[in-house]
């Protein structure tokens, strides 16, 4: 199973990772290997087996609906690159 170059570029874009042109063959090779392994796993007969949602055989613990957090905006925003009027500022998002 070998991935086309465009697929690798698309996956990189979805993950917001920039790839150097010369690295693309390496990533193509590595990703293709992973898919080959998946294909191999696909050949196992899993009929009648419940898909696993979590490796631990445990279920969710729930918390009571109580407000337990207080305002720590100043602390959190001390590491933000830019804030104004309590807002986090980011480069303009075009819709």
């Amino acid at each position, binding site marked *: 199973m070998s991935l086309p170059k465009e697929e690798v570029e698309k996956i990189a874009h979805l993950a917001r990772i920039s790839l150097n042109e010369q690295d693309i063959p390496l990533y193509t090779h590595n990703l293709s290997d992973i898919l080959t392994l998946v294909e191999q796993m696909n050949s196992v007969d899993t009929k009648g087996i419940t898909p696993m*949602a979590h490796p631990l055989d445990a279920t969710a613990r*729930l918390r009571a*609906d109580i407000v*337990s*957090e207080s305002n720590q905006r100043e602390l959190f925003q001390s590491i933000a690159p830019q804030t104004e*009027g309590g807002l986090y500022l980011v480069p303009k998002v*075009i819709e």
Partner: protein
Amino acid sequence: MWEVVIGLEIHAQLATKSKIFSGASTAYGAEPNTQACAVDLGLPGVLPVLNEEVVRMAAKFGLAINAKVAPRSVFARKNYFYPDLPKGYQISQYELPIVESGQLKIEVDNQEKTIGITRAHLEEDAGKSLHFHGLTGIDLNRAGTPLLEIVSEPDMRSAKEAVAYMKKIHSLVRYLDICDGNMQEGSFRCDANVSIRRKGQAEFGTRTELKNLNSFRFVERAINIEIERQIDVLESGGSVIQETRLYDADKNETRAMRSKEEANDYRYFPDPDLLPLVIEPEFLEQIKQDLPELPDDKKQRFMQEYGLSLYDASILTSNRELADYFEDTVKLSRSEAKLCANWIIGELSSLLNKNNLDISESKVTASQLANMLRRITDNTISGKIAKQVFEALWNGERDVDSIIEKHGWKQVTDTGAIEKLIDEVIAKNPKQLEAYRNGKEKLFGFFVGQVMKLSKGKANPKQVNELLKKKIS
């Protein structure tokens, strides 16, 4: 020639105190980012812990729509990049939602129809982006607010049906006390999937998704305008493109949104931070026992117990407060239920609408209305005068009997007094009397009107009718 196919996705914010996966407050309107904790910000090392109340509310909804509440459901990550989503994924449910296969009855033009509900799943809301010149400001107070996304089957065939369905869900979540339904604040939002196909065609046409439908009126308008657009496209030989369109209320048009690149490639997978959610039968049983009377049951009861029409019963049960108001009025006034219903649906509702008020903000209480209706029933005032009494109550006067006393609005039921009025009217209108006696029977109404007018609306209309008939026939 064309058949319309509509499915709705409704996002209802669940009315919890704290967020779905953190202990931060969900209160609306706080200063930006003062209710966004480390979990909501997606800081490294934090773990989400599910809010029990969220589970209870979703299960309540599932039971109310006769759905299957999943004994085991799973949270998944929906991956996309947007600045108001700090983690780079939204925690949602994908393959195993908490609620599956339910249904809801709606009513359009006095016809009942059942709409299927494919699923309802839990997820977290994103933050808000505020666009300035050159920069975007992010407020994450809303991030992590619990949402129940309710997905219908493509069962609706007109904008009217879509609105009826949306109103029904809106009423239901408020009956259940799981969502405040405030559309201005965005607690109740709706997207519509709209397509058209030739009548008789089995497969669906290509659909578009309409966003930004934040009022019942907009939903109806946006869908209708989109249907027209699709018909135009198809009839001029083009084809509908599957895309997301935004409704612009000012221009009353829909337009294509710049497609977020690869928007449909969310790469869902089970969230390893969260264990599967298991709902035990006992937990569900407890919720079942605590369910309030649901709108449809209440509607049936109103028809049986009070002899109301389907139309009246539907309106009166459209929300819980209105239904309570009606039942209080009936109980306190000891009057005919139909009379109570007429006043609430007529006079009261029109004043509420005119002043843009909710029943809970009504200026006339159920007990005041009941006192007034008692005075109609015991013949103290006529129905016509009652409208003036009602207005006085609305404008802040409190006691029905003192209003009637003060204005001298007591109904005239004294036979002698009414006969005197009749004689006066007859004397003034000899021509009409002659015409009436010569067979122009329609003029009877004229005489009734004149007598009522002369009495300033205070004569008992029934007596006027009877006495007048004796006198002039």
